[in-house]
């Protein structure tokens, strides 16, 4: 068992390093694509000005065609190149962020879970009340020895999702409770939002994958990040959901996070 954990940790470390190298190396060509797109734009502006200042009597069919190319086709092409490479930039940054997070050394400390939840609930309170909703935190909540920042990110993300994917036709209700599980603690974050289709229950934890109507901003990063963090804390995450009824995320975490060795930076 111990051996398997070490193997897993090593495999995980390798993936993290791989992601870091890939994202770093993908950035260099991207700077060129964005950079030369800007250069091209400047060049087109020069030609554009030339056509604007061209006396009307010197123009001919070929010049008219060239003018149209400069004024419409080229800016359109550049617009697409820019939009796509900017999007790619965002995706690479997301991978980089995930791999950075995976390399951060966890600091186990005494964490009052109720305190964390109060803080996170306060962050979204405004949006929740605006939608006529409420957040119910069922106490008692346990105290863990774990990494505070990771916990904040995990539950902050889940709460943000509950708000983001609420059903606009009924007031949002979020319920959070803890379930004792011996050496582990289970947390349930339930909402009455729009729900996740059965076939997407696994998929939504994959990087860049999203579920349902794509009517909310986002890149498909949040839950991938959450699952990576939960696993780093030695836990697991699952969900139960019904379309149009709501979703409950279940996070199971060890009560005490063992102190890990320093992760090696590349």
């Amino acid at each position, binding site marked *: 068992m111990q051996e398997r954990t070490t193997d897993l940790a090593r495999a995980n470390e390798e993936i993290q390093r791989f992601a870091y190298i890939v994202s770093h190396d993908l950035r*260099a*060509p991207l*700077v*060129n694509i*964005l*950079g030369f*797109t800007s*250069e091209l734009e400047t060049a087109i502006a020069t030609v554009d000005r030339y056509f604007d200042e061209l006396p009307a009597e010197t123009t001919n069919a070929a010049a008219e065609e060239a003018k149209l190319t400069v004024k419409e086709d080229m800016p359109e092409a550049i617009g697409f190149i820019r939009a796509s490479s900017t999007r790619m*930039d965002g995706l690479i*940054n997301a991978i980089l962020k995930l791999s950075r997070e995976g390399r951060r050394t966890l600091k186990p400390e005494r964490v009052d879970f109720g305190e964390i939840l109060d803080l996170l609930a306060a962050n979204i309170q405004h949006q929740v009340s605006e939608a006529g909703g409420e957040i119910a935190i069922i106490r008692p909540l346990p105290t863990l020895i774990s990494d505070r920042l990771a916990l904040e990110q995990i539950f902050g993300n889940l709460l943000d999702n509950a708000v983001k994917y609420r059903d606009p036709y009924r007031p949002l209700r979020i319920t959070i409770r803890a379930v004792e599980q011996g050496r582990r603690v289970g947390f349930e974050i339930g909402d009455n939002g729009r729900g996740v289709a059965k076939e997407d229950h696994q998929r939504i934890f994959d990087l860049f994958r999203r579920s349902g109507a794509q009517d909310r901003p986002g890149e498909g990063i949040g839950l991938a990040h959450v699952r990576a963090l939960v696993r780093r804390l030695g836990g697991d995450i699952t969900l139960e959901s019904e379309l149009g009824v709501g979703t409950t995320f279940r996070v199971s975490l060890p009560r005490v996070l063992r102190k890990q060795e320093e992760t090696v930076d590349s």
Partner: protein
Amino acid sequence: MSSEPQAVTIVMVEDDEGHARLIEKNIRRAGVNNEIIPFTDGTSALEYMLGADGSGEASARRHLLVLLDLNLPDMTGVDILAKVKANRHTRRSPVVILTTTDDQREIQRCYDLGANVYITKPVNYESFANAIRQLGLFFSVMQIPETD
């Protein structure tokens, strides 16, 4: 400084030719007209700076400013930095590290080895161009010592 100011040569070691061109364009935009000699690998850059014999005599009485990327195909820029700063002819030439890495240990190591400036290439092109232009402005007011 010699009484007759000699032109400063910028040695640019950058394996990505696109980056090299963008760097040059933006340095020029800052009004820097000095000669820029580009190298895309470490071996040829070292040969230019330290000479074929590696003695550094080749750079005697030159005014060099080195712009160095750390990720090169044949060696790491840190090796080049160490060699340039260890050679008595080139050690006073300012070395500017311009690279994608923002790893704290890497930055410290470069300053320990005598790097004069360390800049992380911004990913966003506008910031990239802006950083290079500012670097260019900095170059235009910098005093570069003559090498021994």
